[in-house]
């Protein structure tokens, strides 16, 4: 199988790796760079657990070939906290008990980070639209939506 060298900016740092043409982004993140916060659940791009941000946009890492993101900037859940301070969405997840088993949490948080970048003060409809691709089998979604609502004012201030 043909291999190729990629240059990726992962959580702000420039990284290089050698991958096969068939390698998916999730495997590069998990196996090459040890970023196991990227969880692979359905492995078919439908559950959202493996969501990461590529140039700020949410993508399913299990269904994205690694070569496609060559030269681009990738944000995983490990890159959210800055200098040991949790991102506002992470804090809101903790404060609102927006997770149980935690397997969907990384993807859910990154989808919300992307949502708040696009819509700093999203209404209910927008929240439901943006989280439509993330399955949580534990919480029933109520606390997750609540976590988004509660982070909004703080986040809006951050962007002011």
């Amino acid at each position: 199988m043909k291999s190729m060298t990629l240059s990726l900016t992962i959580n702000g740092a420039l990284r290089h790796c050698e991958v096969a043409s068939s390698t998916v982004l999730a495997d590069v993140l998990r196996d090459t760079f040890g970023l196991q916060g990227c969880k692979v659940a359905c492995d078919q791009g439908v559950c959202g657990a493996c969501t990461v941000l590529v140039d700020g946009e949410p993508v399913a890492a299990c269904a994205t070939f690694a070569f496609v993101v060559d030269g681009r900037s990738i944000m995983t859940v490990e890159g959210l906290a800055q200098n040991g301070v949790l991102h506002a969405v992470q804090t809101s997840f903790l404060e609102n008990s927006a997770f149980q088993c935690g397997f969907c949490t990384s993807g859910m948080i990154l989808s919300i980070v992307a949502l708040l970048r696009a819509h700093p003060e999203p209404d209910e409809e927008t929240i439901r639209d943006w989280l439509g691709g993330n399955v949580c089998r534990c919480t029933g979604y109520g606390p997750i939506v609540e976590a988004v609502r509660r982070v909004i004012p703080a986040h809006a201030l951050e962007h002011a």
Partner: protein
Amino acid sequence: MHGVQETSRNDELPTEGNAKVTGAAVYTWDTALPRMLHGKLLRSPLPHARIRSIDTTEALAILGVVCIVTGDDVAPLAEQFYGVGLRDQPVIALDRVRFVGDPVAAIVAVDEATAFRAAQAIKVDYEPLPPLMTVEDALADDAPALFDGPTPGIPIPVGKGWSSVADPVRNVLCEYNFGYGDATAILDASDQVFTDTFAVTRINHFHLEPHVNIAHWNDGRLEMWSCNQDPFVIRGDIARIFGLPLHRVRIHTPLVGGGFGGKSYCKMEPLVALMARKAGAPVRLALSMDESILTLVKHPGRLTLTTGVDREGRLTARRADIVLDGGAYSDASALVAVKTGFRVGGGYHWQAIASRARIVRTTTVPSGSFRGFGGTQASFASERQIDLIARRLGEDPLTFRMRNLLDVDQPFAPNERGMDSDLSAGLQDVAERIGYSSKRQQGRGIGFAVGLKDAGGTGNHAQALVRVTQDGEVMVSAAVVDVGQGAASALCRIATDVLGLPLANATYAPIDTDHSPPDNGTHVSCGTLVTGRAIEQAAAEVRKQIETFAAERLDCDVSEIVLEGWTVRRGNVVHPLTPMVRKYYGGIGWEFIGRGAFKEPYDPDTPMGARNISWMPCWSVAEVSVDDETGRVTLHRLIVSADPGRALSREACHGQIEGAAMQALGQAMFEELRYRGAEPENATPLTYRVPKVRDLPAHFESVVAEHGMGFGPGGVKGIGEAGMLGIAAAIANAIQDATGASLTTMPFTPEKVLDALDQLRHVGDVPVVERS
């Protein structure tokens, strides 16, 4: 005895939460060993066939393939089968396959892709046999027997009022009869008797972390990392199958990415152990989600209830005929049958009950435990029929329920523990919350349900260790697996409350069968009840040790010592404990170690052979409207209430209630694993529909109703399964309230709703109750 203190309303943040929001949490999925090889399974494409031969020559020739395990490797083992009570599921197919997805060969290779390619190269010669896709197929006169001999193992032992038998007729795994009183005579004497049949559907757990196990043999000893929520159950199964002493099997249980019953009891763990032994290296077998869907489902079934009512509108007796589709192998079917039969009376007072529950074998995915364990099936049928009866009698369904519900302390069945929740108060509360007595909005219907199941298990036991360092740090060891329910926090809280130390001081020890004290497994909402009692006892013992130590050091009577945080007070003088311990034990210090144990004693006069530890009600009310042109149901409001006795964490209780209710909502409205002929029609994550954020009702409210009567520490009791119970019935009851249409089969798809509306127009069976 030091009781547990009043819960603070401002819950402290969960101790285990941080890692889950930063990506640092390690699940079995993330665990890796040096030199680890990878497995893949070849699964049967046929629902029922005899295996003539398996040719692995070509597959073994593929570069990177290490070995292939088939039925031939299983035959020499000490035992070949697993299952709960009745054991009929082979470690891997021996000579026959019994459902599409039955594992036939297990490939071990350097990586998953190679193992996957090797699976395609294996040639299996099948002799197709007739599929038995439904209960009717399996019970037909000319149906072939799915198994040749009697089922190994024993049916679930039960207590007074029961009979239990395995293999009563061809393709029936087991039959249980439960009852008390003379149901026939009482039904004959009843003023009115109603018979209705209800159907529940097959759903999958859809836990996001698929089943995953890593096995490694070293010097004749097996070490395993497993997502299974029952470490001591699988230790026992593996030891029995491999003919090993228990202490030659060591199970580690890292964080579990969701279970809901799908990861309880033995599944492919013995197979992974066999793969690793044959390979001579550590092996990881991670299923895809497609494969997890084909591993276990919730029992579909048909429940026929015959219920009598007297002239005053009081329920008299109920007869139930329950037929559950157990799928190809027993798994936990026997237990589910017992529990469905036991629970079918619901939370009402009866003079007599006569229930018969059977498990029929079919060539479909095995059915087993799923959050509620027969309780959801029973409460759907029961609470639908209660509503139907009330409406037929021209009675308000709420009033009818109120008249018949069990009172506090009233036993559910003879010799059972009394009701430890106020069923009427719980129902009244949700009725008020939805504004039942106010005027109904045009086109809207409201439906109630009172789900009920026993919780905490039957005769369950647990042990626990609580260790306290010289600095007052607490380590709690038990075998309750944290599947996301917050067990670690809850159990730590029980210990720290007894010790009077902050929750932040406590750590829940990782589970490892070499070190963790054993229990029955993480089931039936028993963590806070059963293990909680053991931890409370262990913590009280530690507290006594600390007080005794301080009394010796201060040369006084222990009664003079008061433990206050990590100091002791004697009279008006406060002594810090850390220097006291260091001075006596030296630099390394010391740990005070307390042990606790709990076992609900055997009692042959009770229905289950031991009294149930608590009762788990779920009061739910739904408000819907129905588009009578499309049949689409809109769920406007759903209010779900459950009683944790006393909440150790209100947030965690809300989470349990809402998560369970959303799963039940999925099953009620759309979720179903379907077969088209012999083929699973939607056994992929892409085609299997689970609830998403869009499915949240416009108003979704959970209520933590602390009735304070639980049997656990400080009055707590389990709550994890409650939210599943009765939700589907409440929604169907609301549909009937809105339209008059009677739905008796889940899920309530537009097609079924339109059919029910059509039937209403033709038959006019059940009148809509007018309420002033």
